[in-house]
């Protein structure tokens, strides 16, 4: 999958002599003695960990927070042994110019061979300046880094779909990654945030098998997003039995009945919450008594209340849903029919009188 660092440098016409000099400079820059130079040279001649540039656009950092909660593999093992997390504003030691220099350096050394992980999304209103990195709009950084990457991981619902800042009326013009970058493979790992172990497993899959995981039509890894939460929910038997929580903290809530009637979006949400569960398998929203809010689905913010089964249909007024719209239509049609029936009867009666 990747060339060694040394191979890349040789390909770019750098001599072995310059390469070794580079290694001793690296050692010196770290404040280490010259004895470290050969070790660094050796490491660079062997297969490197794949570099990851993790960019942050308009987001809330919940994806990064989720990522560090991973239990298997542990986040520290991913960072220390699986990949080389060279740029991540949330964790990196460097700031300002030194941080931005890493991007330039990585593009030079690993052109076409690094992973771009995107958390959040770019803004296009306010000249793109509602999200500024290094004095410039974030979308410039994103397109620049994307141009030279191998593949893109869209972390979370922000990068995958737009998420909360893209909810109506989307004041900042937040745009998901796949609508900006068209020429690179994109893996969407939606969720607000995605489950920690799902994030690290996607990385582990790519590092171990050196290929992309199989994706569904929307670009999500099938291994985690091919089933609805409802399909594997431990409360599913209560759904089938017709046993529902009707109101919070009622008898049914205490018995762990199905949360469908209080708005659970499990039946329309593709995610692994009910199987892998959250926080090392501790629980997941339904187990803790609150319905799923559908956070790994496109535009879930604009589908009506968390506590209603039926989607809001704004075009018909703020409180509308399919049943209200349809029920009203049916009532109107029914009333019209009744009126017409009456009119027909009167009409016929008068005709009869005339004919007699």
């Amino acid at each position, binding site marked *: 999958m990747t060339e060694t660092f040394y191979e890349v440098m040789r390909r770019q016409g750098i001599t072995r002599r310059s390469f070794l000099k580079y290694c001793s400079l690296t050692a010196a820059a770290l404040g280490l003695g010259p004895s470290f130079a050969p070790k*660094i040279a050796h490491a*660079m001649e062997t297969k490197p960990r794949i570099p990851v540039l993790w960019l942050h656009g308009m987001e809330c950092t919940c994806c990064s927070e989720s990522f560090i909660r991973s239990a298997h593999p542990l986040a*520290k093992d991913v960072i220390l042994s699986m990949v080389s997390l060279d740029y991540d504003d949330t964790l990196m030691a460097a*700031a300002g110019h030194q941080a931005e220099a890493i991007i330039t350096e990585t593009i030079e050394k690993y052109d076409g061979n690094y992973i771009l992980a995107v958390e959040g999304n770019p803004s296009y209103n306010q000249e793109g300046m*509602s999200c500024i990195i290094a004095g410039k709009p974030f979308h410039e950084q994103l397109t620049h880094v994307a141009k030279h990457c191998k593949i893109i991981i869209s972390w979370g619902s922000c990068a995958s779909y737009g998420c909360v800042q893209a909810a109506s009326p989307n004041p900042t013009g937040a745009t998901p990654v796949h609508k900006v970058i068209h020429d690179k493979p994109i893996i969407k790992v939606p969720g607000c945030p995605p489950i920690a172990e799902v994030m690290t497993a996607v990385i582990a899959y790519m590092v171990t098998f050196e290929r992309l995981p199989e994706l569904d039509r929307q670009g999500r890894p099938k291994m985690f997003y091919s089933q609805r939460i409802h399909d594997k929910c431990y409360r599913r038997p209560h759904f089938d039995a017709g046993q529902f929580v009707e109101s*919070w903290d009622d008898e049914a809530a205490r018995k762990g009945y199905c949360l469908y009637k209080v708005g659970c979006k499990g039946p329309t949400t593709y995610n692994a919450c009910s199987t892998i569960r959250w*926080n090392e398998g501790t629980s997941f929203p339904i187990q803790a008594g*609150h319905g799923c*809010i559908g*956070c790994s689905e496109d535009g879930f913010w604009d589908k009506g209340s968390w506590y209603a089964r039926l989607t809001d249909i704004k075009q018909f007024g703020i409180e509308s849903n399919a049943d209200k719209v349809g029920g009203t239509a049916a009532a109107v049609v029914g009333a019209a029919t009744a009126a017409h029936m009456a009119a027909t009867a009167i009409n016929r009666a008068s005709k009869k009188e005339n004919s007699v």
Partner: protein
Amino acid sequence: MSVTTTPNGYQLDTSGKRVVIDPVTRIEGHMRCEVNIDENNVIRNAVSSGTIWRGLEVILKGRDPRDAWAFVERICGVCTGCHALTSVRAVEDALGIRIPPNAHLIREMMAKTLQVHDHVVHFYHLHALDWVNPVTAIKADPKATSALQQMVSPAHPLSSPGYFRDIQTRIRRFIESGQLGPFKNGYWDNPAYKLSPEADLMAVAHYLEALDMQKEFVKLHAVFGGKNPHPNYLVGGVPCAINMDGDGSAGAPLNMERLQFVKSRIDEMVAFNRNVYVPDVIAIASFYKKQLWGGGFGALNVMDYGAYPKVNYDKSTNQVPGGVILDGNWDEVYPIDPRDPEQVQEFVTHSWYTYPDESKGLHPWDGITDPDYKLGPKAKGTSTNIEELDESAKYSWIKAPRWRGHAVEVGPLSRYTLAYAQGVEYVQEQTNRALAAFNQLAGTELDVKTALNTTIGRTLARALESEYCADMMVDDWNQLMSNIKNGDSTTANMEKWDPETWPKEAKGVGITAAPRGGLGHWIRIKDGRIENYQCVVPSTWNGSPRDPEGNIGAFEASLINTPVERPDEPVEILRSLHSFDPCLACSTHVMSEDGVELANVKVR
């Protein structure tokens, strides 16, 4: 003229070399900082700018108030849950909903877990690299490290030389790989790093331990809220029903197993704070005894709304009392009322928003926000390629909140200052103990006010607060068990769940002690829908730009007069900024009532 004096007493000199740091990393969100450094390498002017804005309050307009918590929760995934909690409190306040005691205790435990988690992650994973040099850790002697560990924290079990040798080997291999990952391009040969190699190795070991432990702490959120980040909340109580004995108790959200699981996590938090976090901060701080700057407003101009009532809805039982202290006068604590239109106000003269009359501030219930992105005449670069900001004009996406016109600092240090000044025994005793330990290690004789009013003091107060929160959680858990034992299993009050029961118009305010300081949400509800929603968040207070009077904000104040070792390597600047734990996604989403037009805003 290049030298000016602000009304709050800071001398600003813009003649020196301008240094720009963008992005400021290891924070939540996006931030830019510019400073002027004089010929003696001392910072004489500081400009902090929030560089992200997401407009969440506009998005909230017209939605169901019962849904708002999830939207505002996504303001920030680091202090995850505190916005949700504040939101449900604001809605309940507006609608007159009183939650059951069990719901209060569960929410309190979630809020305090967040404090512990956030403080630990902040210190070890966002802040530590300002103090700790992982590269020198490979020069340490594991035996000496073990001795150091046993000296600073005898109760911590992971202290053998073998343990430290293993960690060291791993770090060495990592560095030898030449791929430094997050440590790449750090400032590792900068003399600003003062720790001994052994202390560095101990801290690196704890960096990794903390990374493993933090994921355990938040499992408490997973039990009560289903997941973390972004656990679920509910207007009127908590969604996790309690069932101890009845049918279906095994499938209930909370049963004896779940609550014991929670207790184990609380015990872990107590132990980690006591054995690792607090001793680490004291030990590391002792190496920086000569770097006692970065105080700024520190322990002098502080504000908090008060938090952690033992009895819900009774402020007098607050375990962290609120108030305002001005000019370092700990003898006078002003009461604070978030409803008073004269007290909390936001200004936009230096923010990328516009008011009809920008000389006046607006109370959040009447807030207006109209984005107005433009750079000042003295700015360098273009509007989409900023080289230098012009702080005499608008320069940040953060508004400038003021308390009766005063710029104040919020955060753990503010809460500790207020609690100490108001005689909270636990806080006084704990702070004195920590300070004694510091003075002993460092060989100094600092008093409380001097020690706290520093970058170190800010970092120490955060650690102490984390320990306090863990201890308070033990009480909360015991109280919950006692309630259940006495037959009270209620977790939600559904009397006013149905919008039919609501008044036609209502307004409310929700207050929370967020990890970064006092957090307030102001809501107006009309016809069952959100009419206006405003958040004034901690990092807005701390990261605020100048106000119409020219008062600088807390970030900026903390940087003034800080000497730096190397002007082009911002270690000291990062150290002070990070000591606030800036949360930029929080501070810069603030939006207004007429914000619907925002999508079409013309940017000049």
